[in-house]
């Protein structure tokens, strides 16, 4: 039971993180925001590692792990800069859904490339989500046009 609650809680914090970072970016700069985020993250992760983590000395993992996997941070740098950019410019719901669609489509392609598994339902589902987003975007566009016409008529 607690694991399901943890998964739910993870969903909550995954939304709050970019929203707060987006707001801080508006008040300072994207680089300062990212720097703070990694500073706090680095301190807490290191503290947790020192308390709970097992020693890496002697496990030989340093020689086993391919250098490629150390490059995660380069993707991470671009990721946080992107998130700082869009998080204050779109509704929170879109902060959730649009990356989710991106993840799903990428995941389908990566699964096909790595393990020869192709999930058509995931691709169709992502397409249907995009359709729903498109419909709502058109409704918003139409409303904005109506509002502009009303304002112009009011001015005349």
């Amino acid at each position, binding site marked *: 039971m607690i694991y399901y609650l943890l998964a739910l809680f*993870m969903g909550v914090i995954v939304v709050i993180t970019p929203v707060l970072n987006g707001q801080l970016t508006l008040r300072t700069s994207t680089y300062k925001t990212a720097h703070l985020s990694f500073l706090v993250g680095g301190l807490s992760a290191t503290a947790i590692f020192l308390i709970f983590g097992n020693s890496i000395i002697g496990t030989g993992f340093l020689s086993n792990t391919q250098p490629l996997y150390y490059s995660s941070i380069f993707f991470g740098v671009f990721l946080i800069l992107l998130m700082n950019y869009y998080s204050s410019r779109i509704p929170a719901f879109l902060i959730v859904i649009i990356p989710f669609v991106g993840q799903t489509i990428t995941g389908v392609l990566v699964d096909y490339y790595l393990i020869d598994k192709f999930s058509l339902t995931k691709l169709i589902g992502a397409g*249907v989500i995009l*359709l729903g987003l498109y419909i709502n975007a058109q409704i918003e566009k139409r409303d904005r046009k109506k509002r502009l016409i009303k304002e112009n008529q009011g001015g005349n």
Partner: protein
Amino acid sequence: MVKFSAFLAGILIIFVNYFNSVMGQESSVFFAASYYHVSGFVIFTIILFLRKESFIDFKKLQLRYYLPGLFSVFTILIASFTMPVIGATMLMAFNLIGQTITSNLIDHFGLLGMPKRPLEKKKLIGYSIILLGIIIMFL
């Protein structure tokens, strides 16, 4: 452009999570989380130095802005602990439920500094189609 950058972020998330999880399996999730954040800190310290920007002004910083860094670590740890127990699909499903409820509350009430965007009835059809798409994905 803004929406495309969000889509791009989704692509990057897959790579970050994949590389971090491989490193986590070969060493430990604690080391992977630590490496990721400490190296990010080093890179952005260098970037700030090159741009001749100072660190953030800690004296004026509201407490809530410390949360993203902490939550970022929790995200990695929670995913790593819950996935072996409840599986990737259930993790994704409950994660998505949490995200959807939270994001709609933030939008509807204008929380955390975001503008108020109340839920509109006319967008219900769009939301229903989005929900249908999510259900199809889990089939």
